[in-house]
């Protein structure tokens, strides 16, 4: 890649970062909301275990395991699920993306930089939240061995790409319909439970688990957390690696195809 190209995208990243911090109160509110969601889940599980005998296991999890699980998944979801592309469909429908299409920049790279800046912003705030949650709930988190940690990082990056592809797919709705919020609402409602923030998915009845694993939802943070907590066997790691990469490939292919088709139909309405 040429130096000028790198400089161009670096500038794009810094501009997106600065744009993201224009409304600082909104950023603060958003992080506080995520923090409170984590506090709620951690408090509920702490209370459940405090009410039972200290050595008791609930749903097959000991207290320390469950608290570690909720702690880790809250962090992971803050990174993976945070996206700057929530308003993409509206930008498409209103014709606002015409500005980007006219510039000598790849629209995909532009969106990647926007999303990356948003993740960096969330990650920075997350550092303080991790410290606060750690001090309040004192989770016992054991670092996995180096190879597992390596796979965990790869899976997390894959989950970020997966979420990016899903955001692109939702964004593409704007090419054909002004009603873009309702499908997103349904998706995020499903995600709220199926990505495992309030409870781990393996506490669900088997039939529900089978349905969940037929969707990309568990691959957005649940399997990563299970891997970090070393709850997966080697064969499960192999299987989940293939399924995760499969979902990334399928959704990336779909997103690319639909955006190509959408841009063909795009008539910059309202511009």
């Amino acid at each position, binding site marked *: 890649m040429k130096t000028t190209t790198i400089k161009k995208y670096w500038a794009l990243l810094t501009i997106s970062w600065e744009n993201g911090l224009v*409304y600082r*109160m*909104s950023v603060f*509110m*958003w992080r*506080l*909301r995520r923090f*409170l*969601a984590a*506090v*709620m889940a951690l*408090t*509920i599980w702490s*209370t*459940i275990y*405090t*009410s*039972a005998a200290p050595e008791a296991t*609930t*749903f097959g999890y000991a207290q320390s395991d469950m608290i570690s699980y909720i702690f880790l998944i809250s962090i992971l979801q803050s990174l993976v699920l945070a996206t700057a592309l929530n308003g993409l469909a509206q930008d498409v429908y209103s014709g606002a993306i015409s500005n980007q299409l006219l510039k000598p920049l790849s629209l995909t790279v532009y969106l990647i930089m926007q999303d990356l800046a948003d993740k960096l912003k969330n990650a920075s705030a997350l550092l303080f939240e991790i410290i606060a949650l750690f001090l*309040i709930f004192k989770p016992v988190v054991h670092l996995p061995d180096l190879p597992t940690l390596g796979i965990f990082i790869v899976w997390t990056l894959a989950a970020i790409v997966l979420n990016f592809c899903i955001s692109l797919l939702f964004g593409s709705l704007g090419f054909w319909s002004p*009603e873009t*919020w*309702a*499908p997103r*609402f*349904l998706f995020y*409602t*499903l995600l*709220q*439970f199926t990505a495992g923030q*309030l*409870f781990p998915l393996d*506490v*669900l009845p088997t039939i*529900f688990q089978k349905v969940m694993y037929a969707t990309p939802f568990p691959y957005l943070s649940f399997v990563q957390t299970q891997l970090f907590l070393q709850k997966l066997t080697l064969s499960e790691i192999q299987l989940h690696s293939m399924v995760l990469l499969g979902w990334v490939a399928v959704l990336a292919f779909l997103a690319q195809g639909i955006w190509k088709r959408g841009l063909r139909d795009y008539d910059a309405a309202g511009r």
Partner: protein
Amino acid sequence: MHSYTKYWHVWKTIAINALQTTFVNRGSNVFFFIGKALRLAFMLLFLWMLRNTVKTIGGYTSDEMVVFFLVYQFIDTVPQILYRGVYLFSNLVRTGEFDFMLLRPINPLFGALTGKPDINDALFLIPSTALSLWIISQLSLTITTASVALFSILMLNSIILATALHILVLVVGILTTEVDGVIWMYRDVSRMAQFPVSIYFEPLRSLLYFIVPVGIMVTIPAEVLLGKHSLYVVLFSCLFSGGFMFLSLKLWNWSLTKYQSASS
């Protein structure tokens, strides 16, 4: 009396318009309805699993925990039906359209609060309330006629508190032209009352009782229904709500003097 008739007529017209919009956007509303139903179903599934696994949680039985959630579900939905206009308020302030509300011969607070009734939530409230009542009838609880009567009073009290909180959001909207963060923060904080507020640590617990009083809105009514509180707590809740509403209205009147009518 004439004034009440006028406001009823205005609200009815706005509600009929919202109903027509709902039927125009049928596809979207089906998605919203399914989403809300799934959210309810998932939470009930979680509580059902807890009920089958754990006997007590923070001093409450698993059945009582279900009641807390169902009371939350009801109290969270009613203000959304009535006060959806609050979510759109910042745009009115930013564009200066709020000027038109100030010029009309109706109270601008009424217009700002009830500007867009959420018909979807109204439609969802019917089956969800019926389901809640059926679930409560199936649980091992001791509910007396007196506790139901006190609970009904506290339900009205909760709606007053929710109204006061929505007025405060409008105040923030006038002062900062931004309500999205605040209203969603309120929604997330109130979500914490899906479980009894007393399980949270201090100072969060006190905050949930007295600053953003979702504890008084949800936890206390549910506890009263379960016969866990005396009449004094009911009286305290009503007095607190009265004070909170008084403060909200004072702040609203003060914020109107700060409205800059920018962009108009």
